[in-house]
């Protein structure tokens, strides 16, 4: 989703050939392709409603076409850690557990998961499950598949989720036992993500280093991989020996449409029947096109402004509080999220606490950062901290409307309370490296980031403030916080765990290492031909395409 910046255009007159030719041609290189435009209209604050599902399909369809914003580099499950690959893979490869459209945990390839003692997980596999090549799922395939995640040479994206695993062994033809070095309340939940995918050992071994990029994925899902036209499209075919409810579409074609306006145009003209991750600036256009319906669902995503430098003026918590108090969150939601979103003072979404007892939920959400601007209080805090006139640098990028508008909102907030907020515009590729490289973050005090949970547990986000955690950009370190993270990880009982997580949420919120701004729902567009896709972020790990069928 990278949008290079606009270049400047200039003109020159050219009467005579020789010298002007060269000048013109040089200009041509610059001017002829300065950069793509940002689609303009900002919709405004039209209301939206969250749902879990779209109406159930009325029947089968031969095929449907789905718009994706990028091509997956590989579909190897150990590397599946981003929207494009997971949106496809969730339909082809299944995990031990399953994340439902309601974002709850259910049995998957394991019909039963038990936890006889805090450091043991036993998975009893579903009998008679066929891989796409026809062979039958056994415990050996599970041991092999999880083993690939554990092998450091594979550099699996999910390695962190296996950090507490000591062994994965076959304890029966259809039984696998996972031993942990310490209790891990998150492990079994992650078994519903790509971390818990099971593929056929024989297939992976036969494909060798090309596994995931060519040929079959040798999994068990309702669809199998069809033709993959690199750079263009990828086809899934219904798997007829599927153990569960068969897919309603015989074929699902994914088209890689990298340009946001090209993607929306394809949905309006019917070249694509639908898609997830709709550009916020296109909500109104899709709604008014009459081509179909735009649905919203729980995204487990929050938009935040992350602090990356504590040695500057932001090192004083009062300055962070003041910025938060001065921020026009509802203005941002209206302009930056196309009106579809809710302002929040919480780092975690409400839905992440869905399974929590009312008491913990109340505690977690009580007394959080106020979301209504209070400029007087903010100014007073700045004065108290002696920060008036001090400089704060916020990174921004033409990577998307949410980023650039949020950076501008922070600037407006800071300027309003006497800080000297500077925007540093960064090319999209350099902006993405802010997430991963400390060097790239040098000279930057904060930047906007949208974070989504991979499981329905607030700890997925809250663990980021543990000492040394990868996304702990501010270098926050509090032994008490670390202890609580450890306690939450080792506490199996959900009620007790949520109580601890509520404490974590309190500390993280008081610290404001990330300033929470808004909850961002997922959006899905379906044209009049099809229906049935879930609206929640479950599509990352749930075989959603199997539910898509005829609308009439």
């Amino acid at each position: 989703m990278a949008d290079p910046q606009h270049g400047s255009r200039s003109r020159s007159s050219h009467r005579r050939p020789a010298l002007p030719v060269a000048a013109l041609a040089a200009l041509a290189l610059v001017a002829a392709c300065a950069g793509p435009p940002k689609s303009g209209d900002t919709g405004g604050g039209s209301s939206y409603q969250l749902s879990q599902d779209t109406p159930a399909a009325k029947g089968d369809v031969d095929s449907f076409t789905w718009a994706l914003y990028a091509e997956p580099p590989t579909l190897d499950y150990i590397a599946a850690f981003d929207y494009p690959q997971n949106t496809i893979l969730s339909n082809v490869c299944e995990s031990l557990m399953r994340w439902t459209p309601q974002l709850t945990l259910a049995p998957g390839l394991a019909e039963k998961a038990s936890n006889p003692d805090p450091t043991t997980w036993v998975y009893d596999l579903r009998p008679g499950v066929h891989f796409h090549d026809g062979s039958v799922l056994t415990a050996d395939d599970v041991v092999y598949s999880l083993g690939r995640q554990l092998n450091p040479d594979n550099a699996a994206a999910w390695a962190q989720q296996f950090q507490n695993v000591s062994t994965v062994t076959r304890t029966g033809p259809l039984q696998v036992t996972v031993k942990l070095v310490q209790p891990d309340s998150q492990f079994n939940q992650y078994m519903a993500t790509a971390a818990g995918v099971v593929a056929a050992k024989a297939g992976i071994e036969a494909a060798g280093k090309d596994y995931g990029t060519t040929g079959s994925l040798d999994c068990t899902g309702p669809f199998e991989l069809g033709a993959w036209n690199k750079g263009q499209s990828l086809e899934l075919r219904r798997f007829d020996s599927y153990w569960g409810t068969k897919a309603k579409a015989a074929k699902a074609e994914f088209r890689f449409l990298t340009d946001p306006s090209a993607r929306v145009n394809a949905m309006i003209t019917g070249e694509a029947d639908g898609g997830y991750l709709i550009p916020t600036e296109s909500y109104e256009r899709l709604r008014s096109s009459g081509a179909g319906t735009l649905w919203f669902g729980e995204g487990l995503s929050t938009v935040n402004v992350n602090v990356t430098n504590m040695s500057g003026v932001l090192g004083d918590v009062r300055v962070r509080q003041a910025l938060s108090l001065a921020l026009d969150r509802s203005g941002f939601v209206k302009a930056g999220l196309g009106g579809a979103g809710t302002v929040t003072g919480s780092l975690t979404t409400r839905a992440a606490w869905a399974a929590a007892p009312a008491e913990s939920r109340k505690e977690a959400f009580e007394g959080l950062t106020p979301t209504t601007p209070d400029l007087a209080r903010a100014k007073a805090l700045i004065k108290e901290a002696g920060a008036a006139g001090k400089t704060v640098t916020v990174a921004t990028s033409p990577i998307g409307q949410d980023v650039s508008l949020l950076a501008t909102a922070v600037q407006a907030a800071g300027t309003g309370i006497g800080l000297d907020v500077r925007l540093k515009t960064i090319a999209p590729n350099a902006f993405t490296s802010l997430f991963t490289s400390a060097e790239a973050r040098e000279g930057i005090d904060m930047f906007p980031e949208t974070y989504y949970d991979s499981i329905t547990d607030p700890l997925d986000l809250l663990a980021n403030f543990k000492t040394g955690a990868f996304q702990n950009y501010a270098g926050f370190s509090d032994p008490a916080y670390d202890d609580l993270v450890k306690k939450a990880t080792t506490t199996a009982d959900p009620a007790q765990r949520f109580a601890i997580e509520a404490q974590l949420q309190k500390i993280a919120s008081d610290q404001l290492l990330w300033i929470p701004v808004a909850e961002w729902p997922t959006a899905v567009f379906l044209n009049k031909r099809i229906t049935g896709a879930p609206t929640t972020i479950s599509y990352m790990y749930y075989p959603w395409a199997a539910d898509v069928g005829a609308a009439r």
Partner: protein
Amino acid sequence: MSFLRFAARRLAEMAATLFGASFVIFGAMYLAPGNPASFLLSGRSASPEALKAINAQYHLDDPFVLQYLRWTGQILHGDFGRSITYRTDVSRLLADRLPSTLLLVGMALVLVVALGLLLGWIGAVRGGAADSTILVSTTFALGTPSFVAAVLLQGLFAVKLGWFPTGGTGDGLGQMIWHLTLPAVALALYLIGMLARVTRAAMLEVLGQEHVTVARSRGVSDHKVIRRHVFRNALGTVLTTGGLIVSTLLVCTVLVESAFSVGGIGQLLELSTTTKDFPTVQAISLIMVGLFMTVNLVVDLLHPLVDPRVTLGPRRSAA
């Protein structure tokens, strides 16, 4: 200077430049912030072991010079290495995507040369209303960057009228040409305007020269004069711009491919740069530079054939 000696010298120069370019290309990626390994791990789960494993697999911890030497050594053996993000051989990535880009650039080139020359010729020879119309429309073309043209064409011919697809490439040559028509027009528009202007100016200049007046006064037919003297002269100018036209097409294809979701080399370059996929970016950059140089070489070698006044050797400055 003999033709062969000239060609050999230019080839040697080209090899040296390519070598220099390879060093710049290789170094440039390392100067930019970010590390491909941390991109691969998507920021969330970078265990030290995983980072170490990737760095080892792709030799990212080796000294810069060693990495550079290993890379050039591989390329001399026709091996562009393995893509970090795509986890596949770069040569295969390129083979999958090169056809779309070559077809797109080829279609645009045909449009540029055919329409640019035709419009320039008509403007210079006809004059009057035809010339004014061409001047106005080429001004419009020159003021429209390819990304704007892409949006306009897509909005009108794909979304409103539905004559062409909004993007993608399609299967089979016929489908591909249909899919690539709008992108090719978007890519060509600016250069058509430029070439028409250049051709027109070059022809007008020659038209005013003495030898044309003399030829005409001798009773040589107008048509013959224009073809033999005027257009041929203009063709030399066109050829001079030829290298630059192709370069522009190759550079701009990055944006047009993105706008129309054509999965070609340009789009791959953009995506690989974003994820710091060193081997892929380096291979594409090097290939692009190689293509520039090849086109310039061909232009230099053809020039004397088209324009007999041009001698081999250091290019004289035309004025």
